[in-house]
């Protein structure tokens, strides 16, 4: 009986121990401190992050970096539980949301006190996007503008000249038409010239290329109902709906076009696809055909979007100096070299990115177009704090792609949803 009672006493004790979690940024024995780094859970990315950490710990023996991987919800839960990782990756669209909630430490002080650090080594327009209200809150880690990949063999077979920096919308459409082929007698298309994507990080670039804007400069009015935006959306939608040079909505739904249709490109069934440099990790396995990359066709002006992220330091870190040392390493020469070897788009650290795009004898021959595109690339204009409205507005474009709306209706409704939302928010501070 006594033993039973002792067992019963142990059970809650063990249960309590099971719920014990070590906190972030813990002090270790001696002078060594531990900081935490969070990143998206991905086998390849985890491997790269661990390699970066190992490199850092070799040169900074007094700092231990604990790596935590997960998704956005895990990061959110950690922050809400006051266990924010010391180093956090962020999408550029999330930055203002985190800054206005005082979750990120401004970096200007660290920068000012660090003679070794040169912000000029980073892509300047990327670094500029990391500023909110004049203060720097993050450093560009890895990112990539969107460019036009093309299958050289399909272009040669159709006797279409390869796209280059002079290619405009009409040339692009003409090429896509000539590269779209049906299977004889079946009435079905077996090879498309292009693949569209209604992902938020793709379609806005056509609006910009046509001289339009999604929002005004004060970010309190949506301009999607303006003629330039409507015309761009109509052109983009017509590629699949009217000209049939791109797969329809069903393909989008199955993920074929969800991120630009890279799977179909690898399979040799798409002649051109708008993709980032991250896609090259899968494109490098292509052996069946030759391929290259060109700038996106220019409309009235040159524009593209980019994906990728920045990294910042948690405002409540216990070890800001150590976190800064690691952030510098992660986004600087040491970390960038590892990221570039792992095919992570372009490093925000310019020398590493410029070195990575030079690889004679290995495709793509014109990899440098990504560096050039940094000058005219824009982040997705849809900020985290407006995501609910965006998701409802995006449905209008989805309905257009499915044939339930005209471009005029979709763009008008899109703008109206956002403008009603801004009307409700009137008076609240925003970026």
């Amino acid at each position, binding site marked *: 009986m006594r033993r039973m009672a002792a067992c019963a006493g142990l059970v*809650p004790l063990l249960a309590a121990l099971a719920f014990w979690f070590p906190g972030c940024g813990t002090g270790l024995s001696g002078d060594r401190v531990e900081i935490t780094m969070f990143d998206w859970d991905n086998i390849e990315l985890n491997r790269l992050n661990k390699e970066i950490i190992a490199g850092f710990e070799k040169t900074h023996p007094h700092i231990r970096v604990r790596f935590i991987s997960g998704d956005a919800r895990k990061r*959110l839960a950690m922050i809400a539980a006051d266990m924010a990782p010391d180093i956090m990756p962020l999408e550029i669209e999330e930055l203002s949301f985190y800054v206005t909630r005082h979750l990120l430490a401004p970096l200007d002080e660290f920068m000012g006190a660090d003679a070794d650090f040169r912000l000029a080594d980073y892509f300047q327009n990327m670094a500029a996007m990391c500023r909110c209200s004049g203060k720097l809150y993050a450093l560009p880690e890895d990112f990539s503008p969107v460019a036009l990949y093309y299958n050289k063999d399909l272009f040669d077979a159709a006797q279409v000249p390869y796209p280059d920096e002079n290619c405009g919308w009409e040339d692009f459409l003409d090429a896509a038409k000539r590269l779209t082929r049906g299977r004889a007698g079946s009435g079905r298309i077996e090879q498309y010239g292009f693949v569209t994507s209604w992902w938020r990080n793709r379609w806005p670039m056509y609006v910009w290329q046509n001289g339009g804007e999604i929002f005004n400069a004060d970010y309190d009015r949506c301009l999607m109902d303006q003629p330039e935006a409507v015309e761009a959306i109509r052109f983009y939608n017509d590629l699949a709906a009217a000209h049939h040079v791109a797969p329809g909505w069903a393909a989008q739904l199955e993920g074929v076009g969800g991120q630009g249709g890279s799977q179909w490109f690898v399979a040799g069934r798409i002649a051109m696809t708008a993709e980032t440099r991250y896609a090259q990790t899968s494109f490098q396995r292509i052996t069946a055909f030759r391929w290259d990359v060109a700038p996106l066709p220019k409309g009235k002006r040159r524009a593209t979007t980019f994906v990728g992220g920045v990294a910042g330091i948690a405002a409540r870190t216990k070890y800001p100096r150590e976190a800064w040392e690691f952030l510098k390493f992660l986004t600087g020469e040491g970390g960038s070299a590892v990221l570039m070897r792992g095919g992570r788009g372009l490093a925000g650290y310019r020398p590493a990115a410029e070195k990575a795009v030079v690889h004679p004898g290995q495709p793509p021959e014109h990899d440098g177009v990504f560096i050039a595109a940094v000058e005219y690339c824009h982040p997705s204009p849809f900020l985290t704090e407006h995501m609910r409205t965006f998701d409802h507005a995006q449905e209008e474009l989805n309905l257009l792609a499915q044939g339930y709306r005209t471009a005029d209706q979709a763009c008008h409704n899109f703008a109206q949803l956002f403008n009603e939302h801004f009307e409700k928010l009137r008076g609240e501070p925003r970026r």
Partner: protein
Amino acid sequence: MKARSREALAGYGFILPNCAGFMLFTLLPVGASLLLSFYQWDLLSWPPKFVGLGNYADLVRDEHFRQYCWNTVFMMSGIPISMFGSLLLAVVMNQKLPGMTFFKTVYFLPSITSGIAIYVLWAWIYNPDFGLMNWLLAQSGVEGPRWLESTTWSKPALVIMGIWGSVGGVDLVLYLAALQGIDPQLYEAAEMDGAGAWQRFWKITWPLVSPTTFFILIMGIIGGFQGGFDTAYIMTHGGPAGSTTTVSYYIYNNAYEWLHMGYAAALAWFLFLVILIVTLVNWFFSQRLVHYE
């Protein structure tokens, strides 16, 4: 300490982890969500802003929410069909015929198959250009709809898929157990009295499986109100035009995608109230319609 007291103490010690787990991970979050439903909170800002009944007022005005409620109810239209299918199948399976164990396994397969695999498979079946469904329809000279792409057909498509998955599932097992619990003498007596197959089913089988029918119905309705998340998340992302977004998927989006925690909590409590009322109504009618031996 007396032996009896020590025994009582040990007993409390053993149930303490369970009670602590329930309090910590169920009761506390449920209570917190009720409190949260009166606040506007994005999880990261502090303190949350008190809005009183504002979230509930928004819910009443929210056109999207009305649409998603209708979607949820529509998706539940498959419940009586799948219940009927399960009962029919159970009656067939209850016959002493060779190979029934094999067929029981076959019909139960969708229940033990990973949901993700099933949804991906059905997404391909519903492909309007290359999918099996439209191919089959084309063989009969019918031009199939655009299924998951269509605001009209997306919900029926998911209902059909749901029926396929649930006819041979747990409901079938429950009905089989209920059928096997019926005293065969009742059927023999009815036969001697000249009752036909339909009369035997309607007068004996149906009343005696009614407690099982009631249980399946209640669980189906509760599950139906809470359902639709996985299909929306994996197959349709709630589209097209929100036509497959259910209340549970809307709660998830508000909480974790848009960080409107207070509004998500209000939606969850509204859903709870609806389920409670519908279950109470069911219980009320069950007194008259369900036959307990």
